[in-house]
């Protein structure tokens, strides 16, 4: 296994964790943004069906309704619709993505220090 392939693995891992953080941040940002009453709410989700070649997609979710007749986006019944975002799920994703990113950086740093240590073989 060459050094390049190990670095590529780390690169893919870092990109994937960043994508997960991207999806979770979008969902948290949109959690309290009202949507039209007849629109279907969507949450960002990492698609890809396994493997690193993942990209951001959208997943339809339910709506959360709040009674607020004075709101400009309230429907006939005075309900305002929001996307149904599972905050616990999103915060967990944030945390695991952050830890995963950290772990990938740690793995790369270890590879680098091993490589530099190898250069010391036979050095005066």
């Amino acid at each position, binding site marked *: 296994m060459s050094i390049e392939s190990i670095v590529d693995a780390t690169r893919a891992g870092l990109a994937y964790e960043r994508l997960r953080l991207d999806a979770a941040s979008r969902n948290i940002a949109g959690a309290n943004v009202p949507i039209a009453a007849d629109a279907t709410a969507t949450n960002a989700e990492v698609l890809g069906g396994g493997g690193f070649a993942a990209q951001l997609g959208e997943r339809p979710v339910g709506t959360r309704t709040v009674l607020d007749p004075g709101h400009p986006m309230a429907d006939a019944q005075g309900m305002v619709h929001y996307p149904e975002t599972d905050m616990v799920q999103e915060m967990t994703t944030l945390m695991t993505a952050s830890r995963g990113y950290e772990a990938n950086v740690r793995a790369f740093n270890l590879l680098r220090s091993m490589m530099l240590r190898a250069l010391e073989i036979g*050095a005066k």
Partner: protein
Amino acid sequence: MSIEAISALTSVAASQSAAPLSTAASPQADFGRMLGEGIAKLDTSLQAADSQLRAMAAGKDVAVHDVMLSMEQARMGLMFMVEVRNRAVEAYQELMRMQL
């Protein structure tokens, strides 16, 4: 980060390896060619890191970890080359010190 100095080296290494090749397929010539190829490879990785850094500085959508990984990879290659150079110079000096 200027890389012109190193890319100039690759042409020097190529010309140096080309000269002894004409005499015979000696192991010396092969080593020179190998050295030239290694330096050329190092140069491309340094230039890749440089262009990514420039793209990021210009505000393009480049991930920070991509730039850092490329720079570290280039640095590892450079340190390896410096170490090879140290060994070569050491061997040369060892030969020069030999009593005839």
